[in-house]
């Protein structure tokens, strides 16, 4: 009989002011246990101040086969970047 604990993805905020960042996964029977396990597994050396856990099966990921159509079109939109715009020399604070 299979009684495997489900897989959870773990995200840690390493200090206040930073985003939670994916650090890995672990197994736990429920969400509370997943938080505690994440604390013991991924923050043994004070790596975190906040933890998110998400059941791995709940993650929807973009399809790598669609990578070109999803992400390439942004590449030629140079006007979204400040360096696209010419300014005269000597202008500061901009």
């Amino acid at each position, binding site marked *: 009989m299979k009684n495997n*604990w489900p897989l959870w993805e773990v995200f840690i905020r390493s200090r206040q002011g930073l985003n939670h960042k994916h650090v890995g996964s*672990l*197994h*736990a*029977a429920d969400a*509370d*246990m997943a938080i*505690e*396990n994440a604390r*013991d*597994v991924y923050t*043994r050396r004070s790596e975190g101040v906040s933890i998110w856990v998400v059941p791995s099966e709940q993650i929807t990921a973009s399809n790598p086969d669609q990578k070109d159509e999803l992400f390439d079109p942004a590449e030629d939109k140079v006007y979204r970047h400040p360096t696209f715009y010419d300014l005269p020399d000597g202008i500061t604070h901009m």
Partner: protein
Amino acid sequence: MKKFEYVLRLADSPLILGQRLCEWCGHGPILEQDIALSNIALDLLGLSRNLFQYAAELKGGNVTEDDLAFTRQEREYQNFLICEQENGHWGKTLLRQFFFDVYQYYFLHALKNSSDERLAAIALKSIKEVTYHMRYSSEWVIRLGDGTTESHGKMLDALEALWPFTGELTQFDELDLEMEKIGVIKNLAQIPSQWTNKVIEILGMATLPIPEKGWMQKGGKSGVHTEAMGFILAEMQYMQRAYPGAKW
């Protein structure tokens, strides 16, 4: 020297319980929990080390933390009998942990108001740890008590085996009361009801029966141990006994 005796007493229980938990390392039911239990063992051993260091200072001379932890005779150890009981299965280990954690949680809250600044500081640091331990062990007691028929049955066995050793946690002897008199520990009288209330609450959630008060074993505080203790010391003291005086 009474205070020295008392600090040793406080150090012995986390040492012996920590030593027991060390036996689990590498043998837990799942990796995540193996790691979790080792964390608790590290906290307990860390606490005992702080206390042994303080005891060694109180004793003075060349006495070290390791002399105190590793070279005393069995009759000189004052840990609670429950701490030395065999690990048994995971549920028994966690139930033993739970009974101790509840005691330690309320005890350390009392100790943090100690007139002895060093003990107050040690207590304050350990309160954070024990708060987590108590939550962790409570959850496991509930989870296994209210899990499957099999796990419920195993928890009943564990309860029967461990319950007679819980009385000691809330009985105070002369040394305890003397320390209370001089303010080294405060409000001991609150601990028994705090312990009982918490235990009733969690056992209830675990769908486990609250045992009759019944006959309670005692002896830890006077150094009269169960047969398990000699084997723990034989293993723990092996190196210090085989190579007296060596530095490691």
